[in-house]
């Protein structure tokens, strides 16, 4: 039975292959397609290999060495990983990173989705709003940091001035361990919401208008329409935003932390990525930093896998 099916498949494939073989006797059509695909992919593959894969492999290799930062390398096996396991500052930074990600990602998701829904409306001057909301994303994080440092200044910052004008006492936004991380999260939401808003907007515009018209005819209200049409059909977009914002939260924000708080107050904003950078480039502990970096990548891979599993990779058909 299966051999009959195989013969049918071969017969079906034969007419397509025959003319190609006739055109170029040395290269079948299939091979030419492979060649074309390879040539198109080569620049990307080469770039990824040189700038991502090889550095990653070397970074993992480096994690098994004690590195002086001045060209001396001493093999210490799992020594850096053992040190990492007993380093309370690293685990504090992981805890802070956990809090940061758990708050930032859902807030960013909701705000971006809300803005996406808002700017999809046919409002006068909506293009201006879209541009204005996207603008923070194109500004350098260093500039963003300096800007917010002034805005959140204890004595002269606009935020505290506004609070005092409203009859409240000002706060030390960046000087209080209980507030500083919240400020960093709020600023990151402000920076990144425009980007994810555009992603959501693209996803929303992909949903056929007929679905909404049918829902309207059926008498569905805005919430029912969102719950039964928008939300399910945004699944691939939501998956993308969730995955990308999680990875960005774990691995990004370094410039902002440097300018705003330098990891303070009292290590309150010392995210894992900041601590790793500090160990590598501040203290010359490249081997130890590589071990922590490799561990962080592993965490990201696990989290990405969990997101893939829980959302079926953003597919509508649960993996079919």
């Amino acid at each position, binding site marked *: 039975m299966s051999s009959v099916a195989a013969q049918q498949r071969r017969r079906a494939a034969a007419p397509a292959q025959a003319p190609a073989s006739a055109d170029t006797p040395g290269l079948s059509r299939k091979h030419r397609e492979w060649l074309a695909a390879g040539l198109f992919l080569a620049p990307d593959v080469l770039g990824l290999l040189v700038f991502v894969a*090889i550095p990653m492999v*070397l970074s993992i*290799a*480096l994690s098994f*060495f004690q*590195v*002086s*930062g*001045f*060209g*001396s*390398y001493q093999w210490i096996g799992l020594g850096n990983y053992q040190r990492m396991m007993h380093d309370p*500052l690293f685990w504090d930074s992981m805890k802070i990173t956990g809090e940061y990600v758990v708050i930032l990602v859902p807030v960013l998701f909701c705000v971006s989705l809300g803005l996406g829904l808002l700017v999809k409306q046919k409002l006068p001057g909506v293009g201006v709003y879209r541009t204005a909301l996207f603008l923070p994303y194109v500004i350098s994080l260093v500039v963003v940091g*300096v800007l917010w*440092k*002034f805005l959140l*200044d*204890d*004595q*002269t910052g606009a935020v505290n001035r506004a609070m*005092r004008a409203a009859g409240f006492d*000002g706060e*030390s936004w*960046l*000087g*209080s*361990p209980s507030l500083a991380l919240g400020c960093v999260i709020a600023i990151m939401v402000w920076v990144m919401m425009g980007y994810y808003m555009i992603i959501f907007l693209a996803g929303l515009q992909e949903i056929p208008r007929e679905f909404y018209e049918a829902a309207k005819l059926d008498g569905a209200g805005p919430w029912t329409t969102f719950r039964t049409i928008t939300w399910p059909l945004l699944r691939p977009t939501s998956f993308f935003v969730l995955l990308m914002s999680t990875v960005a939260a774990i691995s990004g924000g370094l410039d902002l932390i*440097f300018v705003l*708080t*330098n*990891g*303070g*107050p*009292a*290590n*309150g904003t010392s995210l894992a990525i900041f601590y790793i*950078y500090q160990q*590598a*480039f*501040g*203290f*010359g*502990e*490249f081997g130890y930093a590589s071990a922590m970096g490799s561990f962080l990548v592993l965490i990201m891979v696990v989290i990405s896998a969990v997101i893939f599993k829980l959302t079926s990779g953003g597919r509508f058909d649960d993996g079919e």
Partner: protein
Amino acid sequence: MLQHGNDAGRPATTSRRRFLTAAAGTGAALASPALLTGCGTAQAKGGNLQFWNFYGPQRSPDPAINAQSKWFVDMVNAWNRTHKSQIDLVYLPQPTYLNGFKLPSAFATGEGPDIFLLSPGDFLRYYNGGVLADLTPHMDKAAIDDYGSALDSRKVDGKVYALPMEIEPLAMFYAQDVWEKAGLSEADIPTTWDQMLDIGDKLRTKTRAGLVFETQPGYYQNFTWYPWMWQGGGDVLDHQGKVVFDSPATRQALALWQDAVRHGIAPRVVPAADDVIGGFKGGNVAMWQQGIWNVSSFKAFAPKYRYGVFKLPVPSGGSYVTTLGGWSFCANAQGRNPEAAAEFCAWALGSMKDDSINRMVDWCVGAKSDVAPRASALERGAAKGGYDSEIMKKFKDEIFPGGRAEPRYPPVVYKAISDAIQGTMLAGRGVAGEAERAAQSIAAYTKSYKGASLI
């Protein structure tokens, strides 16, 4: 038909896949040391020597910065006119130089600059890494004597590895108008910690900090905190190298900063986003612990602004100490031409020739406002009128003489102290617990430490 054992008698040829795998593996193995260490050392490269610094060449709206840049450019041009080994100045913005990855990456890959600027806090890391060239053979004994104790933290086993270009003492800057409006006079200048806190409390408002200590974690914050510990007789390590950090003097210094913040006298974040001149001019600061380098900034940006300086107050029963900071010239022992680089450092700052001494005078009282680290340069600077102004005279005659050089503790020690300062000052943790934890951390590190003396 494929049968088990059919290929047992095949000749031992290598398949294409196996060959490619083996070739890739061999290539990676051969290339990995080069990839991990960079593609070669600077010594193999030849070419002009590179002098990395954060002063010049650059153009700035700040005339003081332009003058500093010109000093560097003129110095290198003078060397290039008279020496075969040519030097290129490479400017890195200060934040990049201090916190960026360019300098550490360059050294890690064997591409470090031939000549560079180094702070005391980084001295041991670079020395222990084997990249500091011995400058002693290129210096006269008279020049070494002329430097005196200013070289102590840059020496190992009697050899000089860095030449200071400046000495930068810390003092308390205050706003004279604010002072006078509060009915205070020069007679009220605080000499004790309690008086300082009282006056800070009196001068503070909702938009003005009474007293400012550095708040951001970093080498600089530690640098500004050390004198408060030293004044009570405390230290990190004693003369034998034993850890003595957990002491009443340390706890007292930690408590000082904690109390100042807890009572709202000192802010949790430095005012005006750390713009000292802007903070004073804007009326947001009454007193701020700062360094001598701000004198030239005031001169450039706020020449008419009325401010004063005074020695850091002392605790009850304590004695006056301040920290002396400042950067040094260093030569890379693994650079293109370590001999020429070391010779340049000695020629620029460490010779008994007039040019060398005058160059330091120009830097310390012309381009910048600093105390000259060499006795001869300090004398000439004074003769030139560089310390005639009331502020500079006070720095030279009152503030500097009680100074102690910034320690050269390695990163682990710095971090332990920094965490104690931050934990007590901004997180309100107990001073005893934080001092004890830091002392334990430093003791654990010093047990396994291998390298030049930490003191």
